[in-house]
């Protein structure tokens, strides 16, 4: 029999409409910092973002070049596999559709690579069609290093470990390989609406 702590309740923002919350999630007011390693510190003058792998030719952008691309303000809900969700988070960034515009590829898989060595894998179709961004502002401010700044991948329809912090390259591939957390037992795809937290779910 589980012991219940008298008077204990989870900290939760006032009830959000349940159709916005995937199964097993709760809404949080703060923005927890989770990481797998030290926060990389990359100067904007050395920062680069690249599209590499099975493409007609690799592309790369300096900070000035990336932030000069047409950008969007987006407001999205984000869902962490550790069960917190944050609703109506606002970001500014470049759509992956813009970044991939003109890139010719037969690949259908992507491995995202981050400064510091983190990786995560996604199907190419999940970062296109207006579903993913390279985000460099959060809540109207430059993205803080602890939250992935200068820029992170933002893929809100999947669990947030797929939104790689400190992203530096997207490698297009025709074979799927697990990234960091996927290799340690987390789900290969990670759809919060089907509660795909761990492999086999």
């Amino acid at each position, binding site marked *: 029999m589980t012991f219940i*702590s008298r008077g*204990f309740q*989870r900290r939760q923002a006032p009830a959000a409409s349940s159709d916005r919350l995937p199964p097993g999630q709760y809404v949080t007011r703060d923005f927890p910092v989770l990481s797998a390693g030290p926060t990389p510190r990359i100067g904007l003058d050395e920062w680069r973002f690249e599209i590499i792998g099975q493409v007609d030719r690799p592309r790369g952008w300096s900070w000035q070049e990336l932030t000069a691309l047409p950008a969007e303000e987006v407001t999205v809900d984000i869902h962490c596999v550790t069960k917190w969700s944050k609703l109506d988070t606002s970001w500014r960034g470049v759509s992956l559709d813009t970044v991939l515009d003109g890139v010719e590829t037969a690949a259908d898989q992507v491995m995202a690579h981050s400064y510091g060595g983190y990786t995560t894998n996604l199907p190419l179709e999940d970062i296109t069609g207006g579903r993913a961004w390279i985000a460099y502002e959060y809540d109207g401010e430059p993205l803080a290093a602890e939250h992935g700044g200068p820029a992170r991948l933002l893929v809100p329809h999947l669990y947030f470990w797929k939104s790689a912090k400190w992203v530096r390259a997207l490698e297009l591939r025709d074979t799927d390989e697990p990234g960091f957390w996927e290799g340690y037992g987390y789900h290969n795809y990670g759809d919060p609406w089907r509660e795909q937290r761990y492999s086999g779910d």
Partner: protein
Amino acid sequence: MARAAVLRRLTWAIAEVTDRIDETPRVRSLTFDVPGWPGHLPGQHIDVRLTAEDGYQAQRSYSISTPADGARVTITVERLEDGEVSTYLTDILELGDRIELRGPIGGYFVWEPSRGGPLGLIGGGSGVAPLMAMLRARVAADCDVPVRMLCSWRTAEDVIYADELAAIARDANEVSITHTLTRSAPDGWSGRRGRLDQEALSQLAWPSELEPLTCVCGPTGFVEAVAAALVELGHGPHRILTERFGPTGG
């Protein structure tokens, strides 16, 4: 007793709150009576687990701030504004309430009089809690291990165990305690001001030639800075034990 403290299998126990002391407006010490407690070593911690009626659970670790005393276990909790567990422990938990915990845990960040010295204890904010267990054990043992304790606080209102530390500094042989305030100091403050940087540590910490054992505890940034400075001053890294509380200090 000490050997049993590291051999026993770890299981969750239900303990009763038997004492509460308000150390400062934001910090409270809670004493639990834990059935079957095997005793513990200074520096060890417990895991506390809270379960809501809907099954939601939260778990945190807290250092034990007293030396072994039968079935009594005391932790010192700083109330964090957004803290899910700390606010429960400081605002809701009452005498007679029960709580789930397990321990004792830890074999690395421990000190007992038999380990000798000289002993350095360097704490930032609530990081002083496990160091207090070590200091209280040293005083109770009345042994000849010399101790230099350095405590860093933001303001005078943040000083935990102020009266007890003053009494120990006054009465115990070979124990010196220095407080420093980093944010603001009241008029008439006789302690130090400013951070425990390398300059301050070169004056206040044990000289490295004496090969002291130094225990450093507090927020991660504080521990990193102090440990790095001690290494710069010639202390061997293996003579510096650290317990980092993370960015929020626990």
